[in-house]
């Protein structure tokens, strides 16, 4: 069993969804984001999505965009983020790690090269936001050769036939986007999302994780009843970008994630 399978199996046995936390790496600077990820793991995150900032984040809402801009300005680069990822994965061998970015960042580094590198430093998968089924071959091939999961996405706009094809070729887990739109915190139409997740789950052999817009424990709890994982990003970054000393913000983030971790349990 690979690590992601182990995580989802363990969560399933514990009768809960996996808690997946997205972090904008290098925000507000490299050292602080390493602390933030450390905090998220210690507070109960099962899987970390390591967001590599891109200058033109066309799929992101204002919170992550702002964080990306600050991170780039403060010197975040893919090589530095990989160094950080290696340290984190050594310290937390049970935690899952997914590298999360836009194609240009990966392409510029070299698709073969990144796919060789990630397993060496203990990462489990890779996700490129702007890489739909139609274009995935150039990244899917080196992923396969190196035993790396290429995380696929489906959205509410994806027709079922297409979703089935995406899920049948998926590896690791499928990222189900809760809303048509960009990342951010918002009020979700929870009932619709739950129904959509139920349809996906009926057709999928890999776990389904729900993300986009989840901003509190209540939303996480509702979606955890059906999703195999819930993904929280913007709400976490929003806390990190709040007022006060960074140590206080970290503490607030720890409490937030610990609360999420309690609420991903399924009701009997």
């Amino acid at each position, binding site marked *: 069993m690979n690590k992601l399978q182990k995580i989802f199996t363990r969560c399933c046995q514990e009768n809960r969804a996996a808690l997946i936390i997205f972090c904008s790496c290098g925000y507000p600077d490299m050292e602080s984001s390493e602390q933030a990820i450390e905090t998220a793991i210690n507070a109960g995150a099962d899987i970390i999505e390591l967001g590599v900032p*891109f*200058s*033109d*984040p*066309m*799929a992101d*809402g204002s919170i992550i*965009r702002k964080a990306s*801009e600050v991170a*780039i300005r403060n010197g975040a*680069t*893919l090589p530095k983020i990989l160094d950080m990822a290696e340290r984190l994965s050594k310290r937390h061998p049970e935690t899952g790690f997914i590298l999360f970015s*836009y*194609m*240009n*960042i*990966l*392409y*510029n*580094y070299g698709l073969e090269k990144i796919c060789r590198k990630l397993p060496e430093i203990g990462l489990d998968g890779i996700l490129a*936001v*702007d*890489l*739909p*089924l*139609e*274009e995935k071959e150039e990244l899917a091939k080196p992923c396969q050769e190196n035993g790396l999961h290429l995380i*696929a*996405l*489906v*959205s*509410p*706009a*994806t*027709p079922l036939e*297409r979703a089935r094809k*995406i899920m049948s070729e998926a590896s690791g887990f499928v990222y189900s*986007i809760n*809303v*048509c*739109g*960009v990342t951010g915190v918002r009020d979700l139409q929870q009932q619709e999302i739950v129904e959509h997740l139920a349809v996906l789950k009926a057709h999928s052999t890999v776990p389904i994780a729900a993300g986009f817009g989840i901003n509190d424990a209540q939303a996480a709890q509702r979606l955890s009843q059906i999703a195999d994982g819930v993904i929280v990003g913007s709400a976490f970054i929003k806390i990190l970008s709040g007022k006060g000393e960074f140590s206080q913000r970290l503490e607030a983030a720890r409490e937030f994630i610990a609360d999420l971790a309690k609420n991903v349990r399924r009701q009997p």
Partner: protein
Amino acid sequence: MMNTHYGIYGGQYVAETLMPALTELEQAYLEAKRDPEFHKEYQTLLKNYVGRESPLYFAKRLSQSLGGASIYLKREDLNHTGAHKINNTIGQALLAKHMGKTRLIAETGAGMHGVATATVAALLGMECEVFMGSLDVQRQAVNVERMQTLGAKVNPVSEGSATLKDAMNEALRDWTARFKDTFYLIGTVAGPYPYPMLVRDFQSVIGEEARQQCLDQTGRLPDQVIACVGGGSNAMGIFAGFCDYPEVRLVGVEAGGKGLDSGEHAASICGGKVGILHGCKTYLLQNADGQITDTYSVSAGLDYPGVGPEHSFMADSGEAHYVTVNDDDAIAAFDLLARYEGIIPALESAHALAYAIRIAADFPATTTFLVNLSGRGDKDMDTVRKFKQEQGA
């Protein structure tokens, strides 16, 4: 499914949420292409509303003063709204209407595409929102007023470099959330497939007309076809008429800004490397980390860090040649055309003209250059005055 790539370039690098929107667009376009009614509507508007065909004009005094090749101008500056952009916006807006969309969105840099979109929105009775970098909103105040007069809402985008690329990001974000009622009207041959194809098709009227006009006026095809390249739509449009004639040399002129070595330019092909932005793989201006870099050109319409994927392909294959012209040469060409021919060109078009001027004396008068005069220069008077003041100072 058609081929969505040009060699390794092009493709559909978008978020999964946008894929159904692109598929819907492709299907609608392929249907429209086969529909004689659609063509008739399009052709009628080009004729009676845009004022096509646009003339081919022999710039005799300019050519004689240079003592070389004969320079012919394809007068896209005479179109309604003053540039080639309207050929594309009419085509796409008609398509939007056929698809039952009620709202048009567009990105704009210099404002010419925004004006052309606002124009067709008014013409067809559609809602219109234009995304524009906040820096460009300041630089192109007159075009902002034109768009507003035409009933469009202008949304300033203050993120990133607050210019065209950021406006395009924001338009894509808006579209991702609202594609059910909204049509994204892209202004150049970039973006995800099918945009590079359909924008090229709608602009190909330039090249088709120009080829026939050359034959009528000179009895033969031109030796060189020269056009400026921002995203590359006016160039692809005029090249389209000559792709089947390998004896015709196709030249795309990129904005050299303060010179390729200065780093301050917008020459994606001549000074960039391959990457992925706004849905397609193409030559891009980016730093060593893969972050898109700020571009610079005196001409706002050429100030874009990418280029249409088909141009990248044609550059590699040698089907077309790409060169750069710096700010000062473009300004000199702007003045020269005004003085010798009584035509004030857009600064974008002045780049193409400047290249023709640079090489004209190397050829005899029997050699003909066809230059795409993509737009008129009224919008640039302020910019040119400021440029000259700075140079003088």
